């Protein structure tokens, strides 16, 4: 199920300036298929940016184009109204129509989509999101997680050329989040649609996104592949220190049935994690938090940690506090480690020094694992 082939693959280009009251937003972003996370603190302009794309707010200057189609162009005087933008918007609060059943909520966008432009099939979307048992219910009688699944289905059934998700999980508790995440992963993997995913939860971003646009104070602070941006030391004030870590793509290897451990291999080495019910060869994304990585100068003996990766120090964060972060290069894969400044000085850690990164297996719980997305063409994201 993909958008109609007669149109070129949708890519989104934004270059806008928008000023409301004291808030000043200026962003230049270009992205393609796959999930692009808009990440940043509340008030950094994420939702405003998404509303500008949907046409719910009009920017003062700039241009927004989707797949070669201009949605907004200040100089050319183009400003398509929201209903002609073909943008699927999943709101934080769901916004299901309370007077319509789930079925009619889902079909709402279809009424307004010309038959020739429809690519989303009702049966397929209902199946993809597990909505079958809910069809005849009213939104009032749905749980928070069910509501968001219906909201996602409703947006997709309008056959949009891009999907905007504004913190779709923010209103849900942990269990409900875990219920929806796999569905969003399926969307990412089964639809060749660009998805803009607004979030301030780093674990969601690390799990779902291919690309990351880091927003700060109305500006794009950084953008690029998720793993690259999240492991940059200079961005930790924005990405969050406690949750700082690296995201790496690994391939499932053999499983030791006696000890119930699965081997994951990546460019820099191997990791052993509690058994995964995945076929050998499948791609798995692993998030390794800096606080779960220790450093040794030589390969330690007699230690319970099994995951040891040879690496080289790239840089140390320059901080005065008791704790510092160290960026490591393990065969081309970037890892982050968190140690005390005292340890760093005692071990004489400096850029270029070869070390061993010690990673506790237990840190790689299922929560940190997800199906890696298919390989997408690199989007061109500029600062």
């Amino acid at each position: 199920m993909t958008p109609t082939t007669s149109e070129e693959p949708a890519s989104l280009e934004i270059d806008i300036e928008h000023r409301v009251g004291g808030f000043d937003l200026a962003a230049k972003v270009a992205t393609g298929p796959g999930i692009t996370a808009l990440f940043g603190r509340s008030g950094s302009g994420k939702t405003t940016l998404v509303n500008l794309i949907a046409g719910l707010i009009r920017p003062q200057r700039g241009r927004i184009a989707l797949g070669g189609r201009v949605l907004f162009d200040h100089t050319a005087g183009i400003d398509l109204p929201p209903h002609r933008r073909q943008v699927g918007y999943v709101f934080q609060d769901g916004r299901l129509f309370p007077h319509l059943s789930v079925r009619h909520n889902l079909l709402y966008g279809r009424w307004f989509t010309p038959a020739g432009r429809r690519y989303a099939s009702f049966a397929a979307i209902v199946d993809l999101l597990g909505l079958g048992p809910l069809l005849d219910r009213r939104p009032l009688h749905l749980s928070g997680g069910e509501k968001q699944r219906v909201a996602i289905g409703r947006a997709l059934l309008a056959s949009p050329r891009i999907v905007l998700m504004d913190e779709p999980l923010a209103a849900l508790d942990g269990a409900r989040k875990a219920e929806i995440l796999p569905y969003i992963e399926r969307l990412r993997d089964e639809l060749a649609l660009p998805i803009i995913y607004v979030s301030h939860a780093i674990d969601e971003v690390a799990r779902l996104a291919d690309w990351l646009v880091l927003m700060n104070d109305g500006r794009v602070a950084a953008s690029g592949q998720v793993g690259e941006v999240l492991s940059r030391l200079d961005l930790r004030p924005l990405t969050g220190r406690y949750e700082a870590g690296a995201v790496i793509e690994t391939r499932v290897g053999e499983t030791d049935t006696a000890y119930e451990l699965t081997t994951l291999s990546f460019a820099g080495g191997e990791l052993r994690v509690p058994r995964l019910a995945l076929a050998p060869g499948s791609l798995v994304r692993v998030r390794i938090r800096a606080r779960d990585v220790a450093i040794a100068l030589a390969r330690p003996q007699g230690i319970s940690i099994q995951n040891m990766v040879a690496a080289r120090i790239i840089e140390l964060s320059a901080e005065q506090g008791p704790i510092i972060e160290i960026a490591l290069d393990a065969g081309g894969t970037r890892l982050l480690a968190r140690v005390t400044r005292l340890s760093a000085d005692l071990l004489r850690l400096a850029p270029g020094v070869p070390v061993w990164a010690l990673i506790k297996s237990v840190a790689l719980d299922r929560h940190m694992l997800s199906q890696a997305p298919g390989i997408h063409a690199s989007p061109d994201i500029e600062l």
Partner: protein
Amino acid sequence: MPILTQLEMEALGLSLKVGLWSTLVSLPLAIAVAVALGRSSFPGKSLIDTLVYLPLVLPPVVTGYFLLVLFGRRGPLGAALEQWFGLVFAFRWTGAALASAVMGFPLMVRAIRLSVEAIDPGLEQAAATLGAGRAAVFATVTLPLMLPGILAGTLLGFARSLGEFGATITFVSNIPGETRTLPIAIYGLTQVPGGDAAVLRLVLLSVAVSVGALFASELLARRIAKGAVA
């Protein structure tokens, strides 16, 4: 022997006719005004706001007098309407309907406006992102969600019309078979010696009609709540 006398039948029929016409004709305008006042801001909004609610605070006799001046056969509006549309209000049942409509209008607008303001504009935005243009958003989202308010406003307007007295008697007087609605008939009989029994019968009839209207709207509201309409 029939249950109702000729006079009672006539007054009841006239009251219902005046009530239905005044409510149905003013309803679309009340919806438009309620949406405009509840949703948009435009120059002169507070003036319109005041004008709409004016009949609620003016003595009904004063409202009736204004109607007489404006819509009388020689009034500026009355003369024009008669000339172009052949529509005459003065001393006709249509005038009673107009007086009822004007008196009930603030109540209708108020009830409908409350329901408009209670609608989350986010739902209309969601509809727009799903491809619905402004008219479609109004027809498929705004209007259905206003339905309870529209129903309440209609009932209030109709009930107000059944009880309308002051503006009506000032504007179109008490003409049997033309403008003598239930309240006016009751008032007329209280002025006649020995009319007590007839008055009591009309009062009971009036109560029955009002309770019936309330009951019918209750039933309808329940059906809407159950979603039978959507």
